[in-house]
């Protein structure tokens, strides 16, 4: 029969071990970067279609993550998606005429916002709008385009035969 002291110490160690494991799991193996730490500024962009873009998705330029998507709402006056981007203050030299497009990372990856630098001399500040945007690629539209281009080519090849008759 162990003394009460030994039991208390062992139990304490067990509970501490459990919490240490929990701490390790939460900090070491989870994706913590769903919000921007430190100082940052917000800009927004309006898209016709954002596809599968989610809040917390990365905003990147030249492949480097410079911020996160903060919020996605629908503007009911112009029926476009308003995406608010939060960019780290360290990246304060993004030209005003940069273009924001929604891209997919890898084959099965999630979607993110990619910024391509423009040539303007003024830089984006907090509250600015990104005017040049490129919507997400929607599969149905692509298929419709493909089908339409096939039909168009068939018409073109049929016409000379008709006039030859």
């Amino acid at each position, binding site marked *: 029969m162990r003394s*009460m002291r030994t*039991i*208390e110490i*062992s*139990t304490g*160690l*067990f*509970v501490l*071990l*459990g*919490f240490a*494991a*929990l701490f*390790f*799991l*939460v900090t*070491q*193996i*989870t*994706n*913590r970067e769903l919000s921007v730490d430190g100082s940052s500024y917000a800009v927004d962009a309006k898209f016709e279609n954002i596809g599968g873009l989610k809040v917390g998705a990365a905003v990147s330029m030249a492949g480097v993550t410079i911020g996160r998507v903060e919020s996605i709402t629908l503007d009911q006056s112009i029926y476009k998606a308003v995406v608010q981007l939060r960019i780290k203050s360290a990246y304060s030299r993004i030209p005003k005429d940069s273009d924001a497009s929604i891209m997919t990372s890898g084959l099965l990856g999630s979607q993110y916002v990619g910024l391509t630098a423009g040539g303007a001399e003024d830089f984006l500040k907090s509250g600015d709008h990104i005017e040049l945007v490129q919507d997400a690629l929607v599969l149905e539209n692509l298929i419709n385009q493909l089908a339409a281009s096939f039909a168009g080519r068939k018409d073109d090849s049929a016409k000379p035969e008709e006039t030859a008759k």
Partner: protein
Amino acid sequence: MNLLRELTENLRELIATVGSVFIFFGRVLGQVPRALLRPSLIIKQVYNAGALSLVIIMTCGLFVGMVMALQGYDVLQRFGSEDALGSGAALALLRELGPVVTALLFAGRAGTALASEIGLMRATDQLTAMEMMAVDPIRRVVAPRFLGGVIAMPLLAIIFIAIGIFGVQLVGVQQLGVDANSFWSQMRSSVEPQDVMDGVLKGFVFGVACSLVAVFEGFTAVPTAEGVGRATTRTVVISAVMTLILDYMITAARL
């Protein structure tokens, strides 16, 4: 005709048992606040259920992780995506393997200990003696053991998962040569804090279920040597089935 009567008898037995389990659960929960006034009892039970199970949990966790690394590497290597080993193994451990395997091991080690201990107290009339002395056996014996199991189980599940991931890393990175940086960064990008919380939640729910089954079987054991043995066996079987049923229900609700 006889068969039909037997079936209805068995069905009624089953329903009656389910009812008595829930009534018992209510009684135990009712005594939990008073049992919390004696922390020394609870600490002793957390020690019995948790600290003494550490060896089996950590060993099994390590080997489960190592096996997952081997199997995962074998499959992923065919698609050239060995780097995804970390995220696949971590998600599998966190969401399913960790809580479920820990619950089964817990039922086998701590559940049987609880059931046989309480069953033996029943068989040697200790519980009846307590009732005669106006000491509520549920408050003194059952509730602390139940609480001990409920506290220990989520902690054991977390320890199992952490050691499992260490095992995956041990075989995957050290032995099979998966790139350490991509292993950890892929894992970090696909595991969310939500997944860790899901694992803890499952551990807690399984802890409640397995501990309840163990103390119930012990408390209602037939007071003979054979009865205690049967109670112990039933504990493991019913705990395992309940764990897997609850696992499905929780997964369906959360996904």
